[in-house]
C-alpha cells in the first residue's frame, strides 16, 4: 500500500493529539451503547420486583474478585502510561503485559462463574434477568478481550520503543472498560 502519511494526521488545531481525541469519541459512543443497555435493564428491573429473586442467584463473591482484579489491572495501565511518558518502552510493555494478565484472570473468573451458573440451569433463555445478565456481561467481556488484543499489539510496539503515545490511549480505554464494570457490578450483582 501507499505509505504516504497524510499531513492531516499531524495537524492538531485543538491541541489534543488526534488519536486521543478520537479515542474520547469512541468512548463517548460506547457509553451510549452501554447506557442504552443498562437503562433498559433498570427500566425493567424497576417494573418487575420478581427480578430480585433471580438476582439473588448471582455470585457476588466472583463479582467482587473481578472488580478487584480489574481495578488492579487499571493500576498497571497507569504505571505503563507513566513509564511510557518517561520513554521507557520495555518497562511500559511489561506493565501492559501485567494488565493483560489482569484481563485474563478476569475472564477466567468469569468463565468459572458462568460455568457454575449454567450448570445450575441459569442460561440466557431462563428469564429476562438472566438474558440481561449474560448480554451485559458478555458485551463487557468482548470489550475486555478487544482491549487485551489491542494492548498486546501496543506492548509489542512498545518493547521496540515505537508508538509510545498509544500506551496512554489504551490505558484510557482500559479505564473505560473498568468503569463499565463498576456500573455493572452493583446493578447486577449487589442489587438483590
Amino acid at each position, binding site marked *: 500500500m501507499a505509505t504516504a502519511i497524510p499531513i492531516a494526521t499531524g495537524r492538531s488545531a485543538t491541541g489534543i493529539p488526534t488519536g486521543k481525541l478520537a479515542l474520547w*469519541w469512541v468512548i463517548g*459512543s460506547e457509553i451510549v*451503547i452501554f447506557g442504552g*443497555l443498562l437503562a433498559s435493564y433498570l427500566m425493567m428491573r424497576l417494573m418487575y420486583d420478581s427480578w430480585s429473586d433471580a438476582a439473588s442467584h448471582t455470585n457476588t463473591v466472583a463479582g467482587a474478585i473481578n472488580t478487584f482484579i480489574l481495578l488492579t489491572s487499571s493500576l498497571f495501565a497507569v504505571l505503563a502510561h507513566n513509564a511510557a511518558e518517561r520513554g521507557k518502552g520495555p518497562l511500559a510493555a511489561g506493565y501492559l503485559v501485567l494488565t493483560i494478565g489482569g484481563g485474563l484472570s478476569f475472564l477466567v473468573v468469569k468463565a468459572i462463574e458462568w460455568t457454575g451458573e449454567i450448570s445450575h440451569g441459569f442460561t440466557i433463555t431462563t428469564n*429476562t*434477568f438472566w438474558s440481561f445478565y449474560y448480554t451485559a456481561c458478555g458485551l463487557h467481556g468482548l470489550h475486555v478481550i478487544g482491549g487485551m488484543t489491542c494492548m498486546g499489539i501496543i506492548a509489542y510496539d512498545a518493547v521496540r520503543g515505537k508508538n509510545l503515545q498509544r500506551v496512554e490511549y489504551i490505558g484510557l480505554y482500559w479505564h473505560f472498560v473498568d468503569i463499565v464494570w463498576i456500573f455493572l457490578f452493583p446493578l447486577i450483582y449487589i442489587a438483590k
Partner: protein
Amino acid sequence: MATQGHAAAANGHDAHGHGDHHELSFLQKYIFPLDHKIIGMQYLFTGIFMGVIGALMSYAFRMQMAFPGKAVPLFGLITPEFYNSMVTNHGSIMIFWFAMPVLIAAFGNFLIPLMIGCDDMVFPRVNRLSYQIFLLSAVILIASMFVPGGGFGGAWTSYPPLSASAVYNQTPYGAPMWLLAVALEFVAFLLGGINFITTLMNARAPGMKMYDIPIVVWMIIIASILFMASVGPLIAGAVMLLFDQTIGTGFFDPVRGGDPVLWQHLFWFFGHPEVYVVLLPALGIVAEILPVFARKKLFAYKTILWTAIATGVLSFVVWAHHQFVAGIDPRMANIFTVTTLLISVPITEMLFVYIGTLYGGSILLTTPMLFAIAFIAEFLIGGVTGIFLGASGSDIYFHDTYFVLAHFHYTFVPIAVIAVFAGIYYWFPKMFGRFMNDFWGKVHFWGTAIPFNGIFLPLFYTGAAGDHRRSFDLLNFPELNQPNLIFARQFATISLLVMLAFQVIFFINFFYCMFRGRKAGANPWNANTLEWVAPSPPPHGNFAELPNCHRGPYEYSVPGRDSDYWPQNEPAT
C-alpha cells in the same frame, strides 16, 4: 479520475514528507483506497445503487396499490409477504443505505478535507474500514431478500413481537439478516463519524476559526455527533432483538417478562434524531449552493449554526411523538407534544434565514440552484404537515395513515433526492473535472420536482380520508374503495412512473458527462470555499500547496471589491 495530477501532488508534498509517491495499482486506487475522495465516490455509487433498488421497490408496491392483484411488469404478482418485505426494505434502504451514505458519508468524505483545506482524513484506514463494513451490510441486506422465506417484512421500525419470532413474521432468515445488516451499518457510520469529527476538530487549515467553517461541514459534523449520541441504545436493542430472534431470549416478549414497548423507545430514541442526521447535511448542501448562485453572503451564518445545534439537542426529547397511541402513558404525550412543537421553532427560523439569503441577491437559475430552491419549497410543505402529527390531538387520527407517509416523504425526498441532486450537480465539476449538461439537468429537474408533488399530494388526500399504511390490498375496506380514492392512488403511481423515467436522463447525463462533459476549471462557479482552490478533479493529496484560511466562506459581493467573490484562501491586501 485523478491520474494526471500525481506529479504535481508529489512535488507539492515532498516538503511535508510525502516522498515516496508512486503510481497506485487499480486495486489500491479504486478497490482498497485510502484517499478520502475515492472512498467518498465508493459511498456515492454504492448509495445510488441502493437507491435505485429502493426506487424499484417503490415501483413494485405502488403498482400493487394502484392496481391491486394485477401482475406487475418485472415483478409478477405481488404477494402480501413480498409486499411487506418490499415496504420494509424500501424504508430501510432509503434511509440507512441511501440517504445516510450519500448525504453524510459520500459528501462528508469528499468535502470535509477539501473544505477545511487539508489533504485527507486523519484516519484514512479507519475510513476505508468504515466503507468496507458498510458494503458488507449492504450485501447482507440484499442477500436477505433471496433466502428461504424472503426478506424481512415487519416494517422498517421492526416492532417486536412481530420481528422477534419467525412464527409471527414467517421470515426465519430474513429478519435476523436484516437486523444484522442494520447493526453493521451503524458500526460503519460510527467509525466514519468519529473520523469526521476528529478531522474537523484537528486538521483544519491554519487560520480557519469556528465561524469560518462552511455550513455543510458543520452540518455533517453535527449530524455525526447526533448519530453517535443516539444510536448506542439502538445498537444495544439490536443485540437484544437479535438474541430474541436467534437464541430465544425474551427481552421483548411479554409472555416471558419482556416488554415490546421498550424496543419502540430504543428505536425512536435513535429514530427521531436520525431524521435530523439526514436533514442537516441536506440543509448544509443547500446553504452552500444558495450564496454561490445568489452571489450573496449567507444571511445570518451564526443563526443557522446555532439553530442547527438547537434542533439537534431538541431532537433527543421528542421521540415519543411516534408512540402517542402505542400504549404509552397518555400523560407523557402532553410533554412530547410540547417538545415537538418547540422543535418547529429553530427549524422555522433556519428556513426563514435561507429565504432571507435570497433577498437582494442576483440569482442565476442553474440546475443546482433550481434543486436548492425546490428543496426549500418542498421541505416547507413537509415541515408544516408535520404539525398535524406532532399535535397529539390530531395525531390520534393521522397516526399510521398515508398522511404520515406523505408527510415524511415530503421531508425525506427533498433531503435524500432533491438536495442530493443539488449537491451532485454542484460538485460534479470538482468530482470529475467536467460539467454536467445544464439543459438535460433542467429537464431532469422539472421531471423530478413536478411528479414528486404528483405522487405525494394525492397521498395526503387518501391519508386524510383514512388510508392506513402498509396494507397490500384495501379490498376489505369499503370506505377506502371509493372511485376518487382509487383515482388518487393511481394518479400517485403514474406520477411515480414518470418520476422514475426522468431519472434515466440523470443517469445518462451523469455517466456521459463523467467522461465526455465540458471541461471545468478549478473554480467554475466562482465560489469561495476551499475545495475550489484545488484542481478539478483534485489529485491524491488534494492541493498543490495547502491553503491557509483568511475569512469566512460566504464573502460574496463585498462592497469595494472588483470581483464579486473573495476566496477563503486569498490573503487580504
